[in-house]
């Protein structure tokens, strides 16, 4: 077994290399490579990928590192972006890959959305792990998407499911009646938004600014119109890659012309995630109204949020929600983050690499 490190500055060449094109599985897609090459928080010499190869030079495991920035300290922090092991050939590579990641990041590493098994390993390695809760609400029927994803049989039924969705939505979906709060989709943070965000420096984990937003909104990790090469890559890549539509948007929410909230959302195939959301406590209801208006206008079917205040407000059931479902995510971080104030920060649904997919 040998290990090969791919640095940020080498990623784009890597996805054009013969090794990549001939690989049995691929550890990164061209979109992710380009995105990481444009990461404003990365340096070209940062290692982005560690590959474990067997004697035939086949990839039997890999681990990904995404350089990032936090509000905790000026010290560099990194997010674990993937950890894949070939279930048959790669078991011996799992822990050495993890060890290499600890070394490369000097354990300045944050984990978001760990599986239970990985969370137990991370905890055993001395990291603090916490469960965070979120809510997914269903606003419209979308059986033609959900059922075929779960049961292959329904793929044939799609032409029938679509009119059923239309009928159910006509009956059950209500147009939001309140328009007191307005949202504007903006391309960047203006001076008023930057000033507004300063109030949240003790709850914000990832610093939101134009540098960050320009990066995440321009360099998604998904492709919506895969070419022949990308279609072939998708078969050799085990993480999220091809989708029908995807957008990252920044919402400026006002009430009576006063800025009351800032929201960053991702919309993927009509499913919306509230990646980041900042607002004053007394504006929760109004901000949620604006979010619902946005979702209605975009024909969004589900909204996911991990913001505790939005969750509380949703539990009051003032809004037209068909169903809701509680979600859990495991996060992990080094013990020293406690003294840096991580316990006051909110882990939201866009942390780490989540905003890119």
């Amino acid at each position: 077994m040998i290990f090969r490190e791919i640095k940020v500055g080498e990623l784009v060449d890597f996805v054009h290399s013969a090794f990549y094109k001939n690989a049995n599985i691929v550890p990164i897609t061209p979109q992710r490579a380009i995105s990481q090459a444009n990461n404003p928080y990365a340096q070209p010499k940062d290692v982005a990928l560690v590959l474990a190869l067997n004697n035939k030079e086949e990839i039997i495991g890999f681990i990904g590192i995404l350089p990032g920035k936090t509000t905790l300290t000026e010290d560099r922090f990194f997010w674990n972006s993937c950890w894949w092991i070939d279930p048959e050939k790669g078991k011996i590579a799992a822990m050495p890959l993890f060890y290499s990641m600890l070394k490369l990041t000097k354990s300045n590493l944050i984990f978001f959305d760990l599986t239970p098994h990985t969370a137990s390993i991370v905890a055993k390695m001395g990291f603090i792990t916490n469960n965070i809760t979120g809510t997914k609400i269903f606003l419209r029927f979308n059986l033609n998407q959900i059922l075929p994803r779960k049961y292959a049989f329904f793929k044939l039924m799609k032409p029938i499911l679509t009119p059923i969705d239309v009928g159910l939505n006509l009956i059950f979906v209500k147009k939001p009646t309140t328009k007191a709060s307005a949202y504007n989709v903006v391309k960047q943070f203006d001076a008023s938004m930057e000033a507004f965000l300063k109030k949240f420096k003790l709850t914000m984990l990832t610093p939101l600014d134009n540098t960050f937003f320009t990066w995440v909104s321009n360099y998604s990790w998904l492709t919506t119109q895969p070419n022949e090469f990308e279609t072939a890559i998708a078969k050799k890549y085990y993480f999220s890659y091809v989708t029908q539509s995807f957008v990252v948007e920044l919402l400026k929410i006002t009430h009576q012309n006063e800025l009351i909230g800032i929201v960053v959302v991702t919309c993927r195939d009509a499913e919306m995630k509230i990646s980041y959301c900042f607002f004053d406590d007394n504006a929760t209801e109004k901000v949620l109204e604006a979010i619902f208006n946005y979702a209605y206008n975009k024909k969004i079917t589900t909204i996911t949020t991990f913001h505790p205040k939005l969750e509380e407000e949703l539990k009051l059931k003032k809004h037209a929600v068909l169903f809701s479902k509680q979600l859990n995510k495991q996060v992990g971080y080094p013990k020293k983050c406690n003294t840096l104030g991580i316990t006051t920060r909110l882990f939201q649904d866009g942390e780490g690499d989540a905003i890119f997919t």
Partner: protein
Amino acid sequence: MEELLQQIQILMRKVFENKNLIITNETSAKDIAEWNSLNHVLLITEIENKFNVSFSLDEMISFTNVGDILACLKTKI
């Protein structure tokens, strides 16, 4: 070397959660059921912290028994 072995033994007892563990230079994963890949990394990390040293990935995966670890550790302290 004997003192170093004793110190490694203390760390191995902690990592493998076996307070009666006795080790020699020849002790390997074959002798300790709990010496799996996760605990191997955990042990190496404990040794690094205790002695304020750092092992490379190649060194870490080359250790096949306690003697290998001690020999490498000796070159670093």
